């Protein structure tokens, strides 16, 4: 079954009239982990923002569907309720809003949007404690305002905790490895791997092979200048690690 299908996606930055994505074609099957690699400025992060519904981007052509449903006209919260999740490269700090309040508000809002009953306080607490423990997130971090005063590693773990709580169908990880040391990366990867299952798909955006040592992808894409220029198996990531993008891109062109 197809989870995410992107066809000929063209996207411009609204303010600058600048073309960023120039015809992306990408299909992610349910249960699979796809990785997108590519040099800086190739459009990887833009793709993640466009899929999650951030303002400021104009889709000039093409389509994107989640389980067959067009998502490009949906608000970000509708996409979230439909199962889309973006783990941010730079998670936002929100002073004054407790992490738990935020998580519970988000979870219940999604459930409400899907016509499911809200989760009770007790069940929510039980759930969040168990999942936080796996990610080594302590009670203090749960109580603190969202991402405020968190280290880089804590912020990324917090992203994975949100993912674990919200149980999305399509998880996009935007350079989740950036700013992480080896131990933190392992912890994050474990969190992601724990969520891998047949009903869920992942799109892992990264510069480096090393994250993919821990989150083994089924398919690797190379993105350059707003397009997917090459697609292959995990060996493609190793090739990038060894030779850089230069050779691959020359081939692709």
């Amino acid at each position, binding site marked *: 079954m197809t989870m995410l299908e992107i066809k000929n996606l063209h996207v411009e930055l609204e303010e600058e009239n600048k073309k960023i994505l120039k015809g992306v074609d990408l299909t992610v099957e349910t249960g699979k982990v796809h990785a997108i690699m590519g040099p800086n400025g190739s459009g990887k992060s833009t793709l993640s923002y466009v899929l*999650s*519904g*951030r*303002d400021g981007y104009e889709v000039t052509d093409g389509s994107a569907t989640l389980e067959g449903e067009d998502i490009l006209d949906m*608000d*970000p*919260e509708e*996409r*979230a*309720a439909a199962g889309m*999740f*973006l783990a*941010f490269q730079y*998670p*936002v700090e*929100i*002073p*004054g*809003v407790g992490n738990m*309040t*935020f998580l519970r*508000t*988000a*979870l219940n*809002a*999604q459930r409400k*949007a899907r016509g499911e009953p809200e989760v009770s306080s007790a069940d929510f607490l039980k759930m969040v404690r168990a999942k936080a423990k796996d990610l080594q997130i302590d009670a203090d971090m749960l109580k603190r*305002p969202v991402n405020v005063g968190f280290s880089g590693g804590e912020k990324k773990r917090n992203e994975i905790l*949100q993912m674990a709580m*919200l149980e999305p169908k399509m998880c996009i990880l935007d350079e989740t490895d950036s700013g992480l040391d080896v131990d933190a990366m392992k912890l994050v990867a474990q969190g992601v791997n724990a969520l891998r299952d047949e009903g869920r798909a992942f799109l892992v955006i990264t510069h480096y092979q090393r994250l993919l040592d821990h989150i083994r992808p089924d398919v690797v894409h190379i993105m350059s200048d707003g397009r997917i220029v090459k697609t292959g198996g995990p060996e493609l990531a190793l090739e990038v690690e060894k030779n850089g993008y230069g050779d691959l891109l020359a081939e692709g062109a």
Partner: protein
Amino acid sequence: MALPKAKQDATDARLADLEIPVSGGWSLAARQDAAERLVQMGLPQPRDEYWRFTRPKDLIAPEAPAAAPMDESDENPVFSDKGACTLVFRDGVFDADASDGDLPAGVAITRLAVSQDNDIDWASALYGKLELEGQTPVQRPLAALNTAFATDGLIIDVTDKVETPILIRYVHERDDSDPVLHHLVRLHADTELTLLEVGAPGARCNTVMEVDVANDATLHHVRDQGRNHDRRTNTHAFAKLGARSTYKSFTLSLNGALSRNEQIVSFTGDDAVAHVAGAAIGDGKNDPVHHDDTVFVTHDALRCESRQVFKKVLKNGAVGVFQGKILVKKDAQKTDGYQISQSLLLDDDSQFLAKPELEIYADDVACSHGSTTGAIDEDALFYLRSRGVPKPRAEDLLVLSFLAEALQEIEDETLADELNERLAAWLGRHAV
């Protein structure tokens, strides 16, 4: 010197029907003095520098502009279970039947209206005194008017550390009520009190609180001014702080046609601390909203710390004003003064007018001030929405997030939490 004609006329018109409500007793002399200085100063006019951003018209008019009370069934007043005792003023008139609870040990309370023949030396020494001192360098004629013509108020004497708060509850029932209330609060050395004030005192109100905090004493003052849409509110809190004393005040306001809250703090003893803070939300959708915080802190002692934290959230044409001054006199070395005023404008129609001022004559001080005006943070909004939080709810969360810094100034977390819940509930009803 003769007053400008418009000022003279406005003052004459307002004073025409006002009479000093006592003919004898301990407050009479202070009232007569206040009436005299009021006549000399005249009432505020739009051209006065101190009233540049807030039109005084409704506050000085001979009659209170009509203001419908809030539907009582609409929401319960906050802090109803927090006070050891509750003292109720209904449209400015003390309501003994509605007041209840026992006074905790360490505090004595009487009323201005019934104690005139009693011999309360401290009250007669304090009444109008801080108000008078607060008339320089900036005139506050409406406070003088209050001293002269106040019909009632509480006289609170604190002689020990009092753990449970005293609650003053105001009820606004008549659409033409115009209470003038004057409270006196004295804290003896090494005592402590939490004083809560809840609700709108009337269609229009003029309240003054004079607070004398002796050495090593602490007063926490938390107000919720209610959200009666049409009300006109003018408050003055004058606080004089002794050595090593603490004064922490927080004011929450929701809507209101016109609110002007003045706080005048002066340090007279060394090593004292004063924090004045406020959070206001104004939504001008159905009725105009104008909210003004005016603060004047005078440092005239060593090593004192003052903090002003004011936040306003404004939408649909609401206007917010902040005038805050820190005056550091020549000998007030090692002063630590801080002031921040911030507004969150939720649309292009609302405005925030800020006048932060520092005036420093000592050469070894740390003073800082800042003022910002901004919109909702789009990154944060997207972050919340991307997690499934609908846009109106996400905006509410960011409004609460913005106000949190001001609410954190309330030391008692249970009080802060209750106000935060009230804010959330209030925001929630506007959400789609």
